[in-house]
């Protein structure tokens, strides 16, 4: 097993999980900041569905080397295919065209935060396990 293979399975999936969760976090924060903006439409990202779609099919973007002396760089994951949904109609409490449901946004924020923590925790344990093996369990 090459060193790339070591990080290909679970770690790669967990990494996607963290990336998608942080993308969702940014959208939620944007919705919260625009809570009182007229005609603002709230955005959402279904992390679970996107994970199903991405797993296995996702390619990563690497920088092309055009010269021998170039340092290797890359490993950026491509998230251009991720669908961000926009709720054009929803609760319109004050009739100003704003579709931000603050209760939903705040609970989503808390939930997303917890799930991010959970994924980060699993990733941490995974690395600890690898470290343990490398050190021969000492």
């Amino acid at each position: 097993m090459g060193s790339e293979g070591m990080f290909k399975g679970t770690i790669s999936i967990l990494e996607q999980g963290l990336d998608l969760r942080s993308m969702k976090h940014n959208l939620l924060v944007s919705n919260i900041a625009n809570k009182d903006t007229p005609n603002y439409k709230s955005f959402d990202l279904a992390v679970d569905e996107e994970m199903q779609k991405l797993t296995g099919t996702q390619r990563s973007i690497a920088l092309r080397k055009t010269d021998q002396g170039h340092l290797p760089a890359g490993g950026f994951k491509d998230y251009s295919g991720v669908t961000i949904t926009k709720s054009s109609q929803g609760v319109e409490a004050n009739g100003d065209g704003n579709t931000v449901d603050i209760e939903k946004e705040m609970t989503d924020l808390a939930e997303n935060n917890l799930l991010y923590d959970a994924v980060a925790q699993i990733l941490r344990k995974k690395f600890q396990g690898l470290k343990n093996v490398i050190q021969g369990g000492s």
Partner: protein
Amino acid sequence: MNFIDAFRISASGLTSQRLRMNVISSNLANSHTTRTPEGGPFKRKDVVFSSQPLETSFQKMMQAQGNAKLTGVKVVGVIEDPRPPIIKYDPQHPDADEKGYVSLPNINLIEEMVNMMLATRSYEANVTAVNATKRMALKALEIGK
């Protein structure tokens, strides 16, 4: 890093809500002001919010990453309420007209209090968002420990 955007968006929300609070305070403080530099009674002010995309060259580069939807918020203007002043009969008042009527600002205290509470809650929501972002970023740093 992705979280920087989240901090900047929340900061824009906090700034806007604080500005709104300043305008509301000004309305409350001037609820009986009959003299202004422009002449006439004080006119109620209100803020106009507008969502603003995060503008950085880095942001443009990363738009392919699905961040194009991220917008902060900005107060684009402070407008004057067009509602006419409240006319009250008070001949003793130094600013009363010859018939004894005084023009008082078009400020409804209850309306201002409700707006103040809304601004406070929105501010708190943004503070919660900042704290959540901070917790997530710190958790990410713990991965390598």
